[in-house]
């Protein structure tokens, strides 16, 4: 089991309410996934030539200042930082991938959560309600958000093993299910495309696969269609990019999924009850996504 929620706002005038709308959706999925929770939120676009790196360190008193200084010195870069509990958002005009490597090498317990112009990923172990409170999710603004509540089955309960996974700029993926060919696909992506993996997790492989397709110029919509031929196993995916949002279920469709759409938003939930707190849900178009059909909004999709 696992719970997935997603919210994509079509109406910019309600972006200040994204966190308030999204938090109850995540918490409602607690009994589908009480082990850990994670959120990808798209907001506060970095200025041109700048990128945001969200990094995690398990020690709440970890001193990030030397890390920021190292980026300034190494890349002759401007750096701003914004701490949110165990996570740090580092905004700089350094090359984002190189800066991310430097951050990761600064301390063995530091992990990169996401890199991009608008994405920030926060994940922690514990009940979704506690995780939401810890990061003050309710107060966050933004254009879209994707969340996951995890009941671990095939790898350890750790912060790194929590969803969402991000392997490309501004890309995030959450997954309910299990893939059966992730080992061979991981090997292929590693050997032929030089992709680096941080965990043994199957979803990280799917995220890397989608990132690789996007790098080849495919749209998010097309990249998810490619999944149908290259991924084997059970999956309901929700993926986000800088300005896009997409959903795919495997052809057997064992894992649950509900979509709702109004003039103001598109919402995804593993179950309908995750959506009941949304304004206007009674009149929303509510449907179950078809197996093996990609649904996408925004972006280049």
């Amino acid at each position, binding site marked *: 089991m696992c719970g997935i929620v997603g919210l994509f706002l079509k109406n910019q005038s309600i972006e200040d309410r994204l966190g308030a709308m999204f938090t109850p959706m995540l918490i409602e999925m607690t009994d589908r996934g009480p082990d850990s929770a994670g959120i990808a939120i798209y907001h506060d676009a970095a200025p041109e030539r700048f990128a945001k790196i969200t990094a995690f360190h398990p020690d709440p008193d970890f001193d990030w200042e030397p890390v920021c200084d190292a980026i300034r010195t190494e890349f002759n870069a401007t750096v701003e930082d914004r701490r949110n509990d165990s996570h740090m958002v580092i905004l700089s005009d350094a090359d984002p991938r190189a800066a991310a490597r430097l951050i990761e090498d600064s301390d063995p317990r530091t992990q990169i959560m996401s890199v991009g112009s608008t994405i920030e990923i926060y994940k922690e172990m514990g009940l979704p309600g506690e995780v939401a409170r810890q990061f003050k999710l309710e107060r966050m603004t933004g254009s879209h958000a994707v969340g996951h509540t995890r009941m671990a089955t095939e790898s350890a309960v750790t912060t790194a093993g929590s969803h969402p996974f991000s392997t490309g700029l501004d890309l995030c993926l959450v997954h309910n299910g299990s893939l059966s060919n992730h080992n061979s696909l991981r090997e292929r992506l590693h050997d032929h495309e030089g992709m680096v993996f941080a965990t043994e997790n199957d979803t990280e492989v799917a995220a890397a696969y989608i990132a690789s397709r996007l790098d080849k110029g495919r749209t998010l919509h097309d990249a998810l269609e490619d999944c149908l031929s290259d991924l084997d196993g059970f999956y309901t995916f929700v993926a986000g990019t800088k300005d896009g949002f997409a959903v795919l279920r495997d052809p*057997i*469709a064992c894992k*649950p999924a509900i979509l709702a759409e109004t003039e103001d938003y598109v919402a995804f939930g593993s179950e309908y*009850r995750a959506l009941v707190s949304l304004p206007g849900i009674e009149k929303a178009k*509510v449907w*179950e996504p078809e197996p093996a059909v990609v649904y996408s909004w925004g972006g280049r999709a």
Partner: protein
Amino acid sequence: MTAVAPGPANITVMDLARDDLSQVNQDLQKADPRGGPFRVLNPRGAHALACGLTSGIDVEIEGHTGYYCAGMNQAARVTVSGNAGVGVAENMMSGEVWVKGDASQSAGATAHGGLLVVEGNTAARCGISLKGADIVVKGDVGHMSMFLAQAGRLVVLGDAGDSLGDSIYEARIYVRGKVASLGADCIEKEMREEHRTELRDLLERAGCDGVGLDGFRRYGSARQLYHFKAENLDSY
């Protein structure tokens, strides 16, 4: 009884925005069939709502329900004015469950008796392992519907997804629209007068006024899969 605020014509109103789900279910399970109908407000996708009812009461649910709504139903008439989640009316024994919207996967799974009507579409595996109930779907049904169905009838006014009736036993299927593909051991069969009579009766019970029998095709078991054959002895 949690139920308060009786509505007009001795309707008992229960509100899940306020009342406890287990208490509502217990009250419905103990309800006197000689009393008035029940209306349940704000189901909000709750699981296992109106499950295990055993008397001929009327329950109207106003909104979308979660998993296993009206499961194990006996005698009661349950209406969902909204969509129903996974496994609506699963293992129903008798009575009637009527969904005004769509139903998710495994609608009517293993149901022994009674009638399930879905006004919209159902997702995959509608009527899986059906054991004698009747299901009428006015829209489409998803893939693997009637998988392993043993007895009972499914009527589909729209289309059916892939592998309809896979490994079916003695259940019967009537589809008016397109069938994406038939599952193993499921074949189209001749529509004889007894089948036309049975179909007419099912359509009438499901309130399909003005729906003629034209275009309906019948599907059922080729009976090649579940009979033991002496020449296959070596395989065992």
